[in-house]
């Protein structure tokens, strides 16, 4: 039994990590704004040093998922949570004598907008990564890996790529929302190969990182299912699993990128509600290849994905059917 702190346990991914650790018999504490519903909570922000210190007290290990994601907000807002929050946690963890720190990062920290085909875990680049989320996460990862100390706190960075599954509000949620409104275009031919990570595999990878060989620490690893698919096939698969019509409208990729750029600017300068319907970042993500060389990751973490993409889609379909049965009388 290990005493673990999981930050950001209110989202699908973080909650699943906390739940898994509880199920495995660990002593789990969680830190996030709301209740996690799966373990003892410390509620508050990672940006607040006092809250962080309280959360880290007596812990042997930390899995740090808390982050400001999405695309809305100023750089400062992202920096506050993603960079300062990480710095707070690292300092508190060192102070509290934590042994292992699993920093959850993102492949976007090394993505400069071009296609990634079979790429490794490139160096995080806070200056050139795309968008506030990726830039601040890049800075956070650099901080985290710099804090790795062979004689003290050991830090490892894990970058799961597009984590999805039942209850996911990011990929699945957005696809469904747009598909229902008939606003889910396919960019270009929809052939860009994109790899994703089914949530259970991502959870396994973080748990594996927690107990990985010492030698694996001090580095970053991209985690995916290792099953890239043309983006159109992924969208069709998700739509089919959730019982909504598949996308039909094709928009040229270049047009989508420019429109995204314009909307980015509009949302940044004008007091518009919610998120823009398309961002340049999203357009780039959906029209360029993103898949990764998993050999090093699998060897270093002693992990490999158990749930295949097809199996994941089936689970998503069952879950959707169950939800529907529950909500529709």
């Amino acid at each position, binding site marked *: 039994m290990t005493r673990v702190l999981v930050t950001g346990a209110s989202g699908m991914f973080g909650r699943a990590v906390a739940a898994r650790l509880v199920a495995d018999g660990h002593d789990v504490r969680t830190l996030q704004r709301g209740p996690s519903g799966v373990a003892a909570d410390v509620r508050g922000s990672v940006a607040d040093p006092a809250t962080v210190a309280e959360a880290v007290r007596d812990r042997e290990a930390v899995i740090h998922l808390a982050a400001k994601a999405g695309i809305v907000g100023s750089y400062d807002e992202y920096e506050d949570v993603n960079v300062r929050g990480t710095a707070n946690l690292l300092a508190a963890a060192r102070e509290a004598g934590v042994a292992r720190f699993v920093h959850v990062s993102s492949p976007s920290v090394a993505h400069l907008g071009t296609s990634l085909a079979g790429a490794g875990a490139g160096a995080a680049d806070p200056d050139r990564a795309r968008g506030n989320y990726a830039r601040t996460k890049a800075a956070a990862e650099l901080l985290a890996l710099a804090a790795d100390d062979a004689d003290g706190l050991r830090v490892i960075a894990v970058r799961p790529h597009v984590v999805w599954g039942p209850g996911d509000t990011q990929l699945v949620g957005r696809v469904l929302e747009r598909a229902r409104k008939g606003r889910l275009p396919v960019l270009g031919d929809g052939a860009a190969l994109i790899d994703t990570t089914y949530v259970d595999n991502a959870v396994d990878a973080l748990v594996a990182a927690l107990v990985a060989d010492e030698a694996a620490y001090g580095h970053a690893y991209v985690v995916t299912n290792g099953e890239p698919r043309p983006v159109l*096939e992924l969208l069709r698969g998700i739509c089919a699993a959730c019982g909504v019509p598949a996308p039909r409208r094709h928009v040229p990729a270049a047009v989508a990128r420019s429109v995204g750029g314009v909307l980015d600017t509009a949302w940044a300068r004008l007091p518009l509600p919610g998120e823009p319907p398309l961002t340049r970042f999203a357009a780039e993500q959906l029209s360029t290849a993103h898949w990764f060389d998993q050999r090093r990751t699998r060897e270093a973490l002693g992990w490999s994905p158990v749930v295949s993409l097809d199996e994941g889609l089936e689970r998503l379909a069952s879950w959707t059917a169950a939800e529907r049965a529950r909500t529709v009388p």
Partner: protein
Amino acid sequence: MTVRTIPTVASSPPQALLDAGGIDARWSRVVEVPAGGPGTTTRSWHLLDNAATLTGEPVGTLLCVHGNPTWSYLWRRLVAAGAREDRPWRVVAVDQLEMGFSERTGDTHRLADRVRDLGALTDVLGLTGPVVTVGHDWGGLISLGWAIDHPDQLAGVVLTNTAVHQPVDERVPPVLRLAMAPAVRPLGTVTTSAFLETTLAIAHPRLDPLTADGFRAPYRSADRRGGIGGFVADIPATHDHPSRPELERIADGASRLDVPALLLWGPRDPVFTARYLRDLRERLPHADVHRFEGAGHLVVEDRDVAGGVLRWLDARDVGGSPGERTPAPADAPYRPLGAALDERSDDEGTAIVELGAGARRASWRTLAARTDELARGLAAYEVKAGDRVALLVPPGVDLTSILYACLRLGAVVVVADAGLGVQGLTRAVRAAEPKVVIGIERALVAARWLRWAPTLISAGPLRPGVRRALGVAASLDEVAALGRSWEEELPWPAPDEDAAILFTSGSTGPAKGVAYTHRRLGAIRDVVAATYGIGPGSPLVAAFAPFVLLGPALGATSASPDMDVTAPGTLTATALAEAVRAIDGAVVFASPAALANAVRTADDLADADRAALGGVRLFLSAGAPVQPDLLEAAVALMPAADAHTPYGMTESLLVTDVSLDELRAAGAGNGVCVGRPVAGARIAISALAADGAATGEPATTPGATGEVLVSAPHVKERYDGLWLTQDASARDAGWHRTGDVGHLDADGRLWIEGRLAHVLVTDAGVVTPVGLELRARAVHGVRAAAVVGVGPRGTQQVVVVVESESQAPLVADAVLAANVREALEPVSVAAVLVATRLPTDVRHNSKVDRIRVAAWAEKVLAGERARL
């Protein structure tokens, strides 16, 4: 307009330049050399020398001399490559005086001065062990001068795009003539950087800007470029040129060199054209030659010359003790390919029948007489044994008689397929350098305007006026007529002299010339006879080019049906039957495309045609992989025949054979079953390593996938003018590496899984395409399929591109994708794409060009737009 050179001593290039060129700063040296003449005391040279970074005792020294207007930068990759751990070579690459970063003296340096200066430099340097000179452009000439002057140290010479002889009666290449004109020279070479920029601009592929800047670095201003003009002024193009005597001395001396020699050549060179290579080959007949098809004057930059030089040094054991090359396997008794013709010169029976418009029939006696006349006639036209003769004549009596005439004479026939297209054909024929082209009118037009050969001979009729317009020397009839009065003795060529250069289809890169000796051609006949029992009692109908020519060698009456042999799909069932009836044919050779069309047109057959086809006892589908269902359909056409299909390639026309019955017995497997080795042939597999390279020792372990190796008396002698390719293909003594990948099954049958260049390496291991393609093609709605990889080797993703009957491009719908994935399990497929049409090779229209498909898939799966 004159530009004065400002005297400047040698210096090392700036660090940034060295870094950009991957040049270790320790290699860059400045050396003071006592001047030979009165006046100045020393000359300072800049050079690259890897001696300081060698970890072991070098085998010897490579002395590299650049030409005009480059500098030692040209050799940077060789300097680096020499400093390897195993068998290192010290590599010294000099900047000549007035050039690169060596001293600017303002003096004139004649050729003799440059040779002497280089000697003075090496005296000071002290070269280690045996020396191999390496030269490019005019540096080749200077390096040869050094070689001739240092016979005790010399162990070998390497020359790249250079010339040792500039005959006064031949015209200097136009590009140089312009630069040499006294009025133009200073402007073109010194005042402006035009000469330098022109040289850099003709690199193939284009130089990247950083590399081009490296070449420009020492020649940034006019006062630094004096040497470039000086070099051009020193080209001894006239009788009275001061450098003429030294040129003659080097040219003569080169002809007496007996050390190992390597000629590496970029054929797309406007200055050092093919005739300079020819001149060098004549002077150094023992030289190994490699033409890098597509490369140009800057061949050292265009291709991996560094790797090639080191491979050659190792293979020839230059600088080591001369070892014995592995002896060739013992050969069967030799019988010339044309022996049967000679033996049956009194036989009035039918030898050959040509059907269609202008149908002809020739008896053995006529054919033998015609062959003999043509051989003598060619001799009368001063075609000698060893001269190359390109044949561009459709199969039939003319081609057969001229082919056997050349073989009788000892002239080397050059045969390239019209399917290569004019461009491919031109590249192929010019690479073989024939002295004569014999062709039909259409071929002669191309031969004249594209400069395939100096002498043209016409086969068949010419339209009025064409003869004069093309400068055709003679017609075949005229050659034969002359031959009738040519009484001199005609010796038979020796068995191990070259007999033929056959060109590959070029489906994997430019077509390669494959050389066969007379002995090996004879062995092809013998293996066909032994494998299929073909001889005097088995008349054969050949609708597939190579075999049309074999009939007379086998002593079998042969017929070619009325069809366009260059377009196999034009063979109709009726035409096939007509040919069979004409000679009472027992054996039929056809390509799958020809067979398919014959099957398609079977309904047109008359009863007499059907009866004739019923007499065929054996048919062979040759030239490309064939589907068993096509063989079944062909058997329906020729019900008494055994269906066979051989597997082979230009380098070994027959490797294995399989019958339809055996194909049925073998069932499905990973790849296409091609059967067992033919008589006298052995097969081995060189297993693939985890990275997809064929590194295994030749073995016959069942189930192991690797490159297919063949050993047989009828395998090619070598690749022509492609020493490096030959060396790689023959690196296992006695074996030819086919470039195909496959495995042997427990019953000793060979299964072909694809080309080595098409193997995928995924994170789950090596994946071969053919077996998967067969499984994909079995999926409903799939007409054709290609399996290719995208992404970096080692973590490639498997992509299946299909031609579909019902779907439009690009991402396959969910049902098709699921069906294809299921068919290919357990291989994980990243994407199933639909293409309108998969590109295939020109010759057989049946082999999918997977390299092109892969490049296309790589783009579209990265989200880019691309056309297939």
